[in-house]
């Protein structure tokens, strides 16, 4: 491997501006965030043979739904598995590897589309792309925390906001490209996959090229660690193996899992939900606008909430998420009965901002709890909570709705039980967050405090 990827060659020299690191992180997250927009391919991929309408041999929507599910499951697993490797090799090697896997995922999936073989698509976008997603997601996190010890929440929030923003680029870009490549004999999906793979590869390489690690003794001018002021911010460092054996790791796992479960199910079902709760008042077009609005609040919440956590503390930030979330979920059925679309939309906008905020604030929470030494690897293992929530959330929302409808409940009330259940899940998260305490010093890497 050339020295360009050695950890030593990634250390920034004196005079390097830390404001070059967030665009490097964004170059990765804006690309891999495309995963959230994968559903834009569902309809065209369901009529690759029939072209105008699905033919008998065309793929079904449930078959296609597995592509995204596999990618998200592999994301969590690869983040957990490769976290230590990402930490030891530095961000450049990880970003480059992520770019290779993510682009290869698109290329192999394009080949599968061309051959009309769903298993090749599962392997391409789901497995290869999923590995790229997992490595890419955690690659800039610990680097940003090290560059911004004074504002770790803001720094990681900026990158993770990029993941939320990636769908906003990926979706219209895919539509544009498919329109460009479409012919009378093809919908242009395979060509779109190939083109997107190349474009994302180039942008991700740009991130890998400009990213740097701070020197061990580097600190921002005038920075004074706030360790003594807050007992929830550790001065020590907990190795990843020790961290996963602590009560605090599993409490945070539960905190993330509950927060994501409550948000992700609603996000996937937002369009039919608003149409069914307000029949005749919200059209399909307006419902797609609702989905767009939720995406914006999901993205903005990542930056706003994680930046706020730098001032009010991570534990307090999650307290707000859970208490406010419980109140809002419990109030949603009432807004439906009142017939107030505005209140319904406002409640969900805040809920989705806290869903995004939960993702963005967790790295800084981990840094406060376990120190900076292995924070990227610990974050990777914690993301298995996302994999679980990615299955749990949609299953709960969809199956409870179907069960209610099958038992004669009106469509306008089909989500009431689900909303109360989401509030209950958030209450579990609230309890877990309430129980958070500093990690016992016996788990620390060294006895004496070490500040990055």
């Amino acid at each position: 491997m050339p020295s360009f990827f050695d950890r030593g060659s990634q250390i920034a020299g004196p005079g390097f501006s830390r404001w070059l690191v967030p665009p490097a992180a964004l170059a990765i997250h804006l690309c891999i965030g495309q995963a959230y927009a994968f559903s834009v391919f569902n309809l065209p991929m369901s009529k690759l043979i029939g072209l105008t309408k699905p033919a008998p041999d065309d793929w079904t929507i449930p078959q296609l739904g597995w592509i995204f599910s596999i990618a998200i499951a592999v994301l969590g697993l690869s983040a957990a598995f490769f976290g230590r490797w990402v930490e030891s090799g530095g961000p450049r090697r990880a970003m480059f590897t992520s770019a290779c896997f993510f682009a290869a995922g698109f290329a192999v999936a394009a080949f599968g589309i061309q051959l009309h073989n769903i298993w090749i698509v599962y392997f391409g976008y789901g497995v290869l792309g999923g590995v790229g997603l997992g490595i890419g997601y955690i690659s800039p996190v610990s680097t940003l925390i090290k560059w911004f010890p004074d504002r770790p929440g803001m720094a990681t929030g900026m990158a993770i906001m990029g993941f939320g923003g990636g769908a906003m680029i990926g979706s219209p870009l895919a539509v544009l490209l498919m329109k460009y490549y479409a012919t009378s004999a093809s919908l242009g999906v395979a060509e779109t996959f190939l083109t997107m793979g190349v474009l994302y590869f180039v942008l991700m390489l740009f991130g890998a090229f400009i990213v740097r690690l701070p020197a061990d003794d580097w600190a921002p001018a005038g920075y004074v660690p706030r360790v003594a002021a807050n007992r929830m911010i550790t001065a020590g460092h907990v190795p990843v193996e020790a961290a996963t054996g602590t009560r605090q790791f599993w409490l945070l796992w539960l905190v993330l899992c509950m927060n994501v479960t409550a948000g992700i199910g609603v996000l996937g079902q937002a369009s039919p939900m608003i149409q069914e709760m307000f029949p005749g008042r919200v059209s399909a077009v307006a419902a797609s606008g609702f989905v767009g609005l939720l995406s914006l609040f999901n993205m903005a919440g990542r930056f706003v909430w994680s930046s706020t956590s730098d001032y009010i503390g991570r534990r307090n930030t999650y307290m707000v998420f859970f208490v406010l979330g419980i109140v809002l979920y419990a109030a949603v059925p009432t807004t439906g009965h009142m017939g107030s679309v505005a209140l319904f939309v406002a409640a969900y906008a805040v809920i989705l901002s806290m869903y995004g905020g939960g993702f963005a604030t967790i790295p800084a929470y981990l840094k406060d709890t376990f120190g900076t030494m292995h924070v990227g690897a610990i974050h990777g293992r914690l993301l298995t909570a996302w994999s679980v929530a990615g299955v749990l959330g949609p299953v709960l929302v969809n199956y409870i709705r179907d069960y209610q409808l099958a038992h004669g409940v009106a469509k306008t009330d089909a989500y009431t039980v689900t909303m109360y259940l989401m509030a209950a899940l958030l209450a579990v998260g609230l309890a877990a967050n309430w129980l958070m305490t500093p990690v016992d010093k016996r788990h620390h890497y060294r006895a004496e405090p070490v500040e990055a």
Partner: protein
Amino acid sequence: MAAKPQKSSPLLIVLAWAIVGIPWIWGITQTLKNAAKLFG
């Protein structure tokens, strides 16, 4: 290993932000247009 001094030019910082910022703003604009349908 002592790292060499590498002063970051303000132009480079602006360029780096532009490379990620321009597609991002384009994506946000498209989403805002879509979100506007809720109020249309």
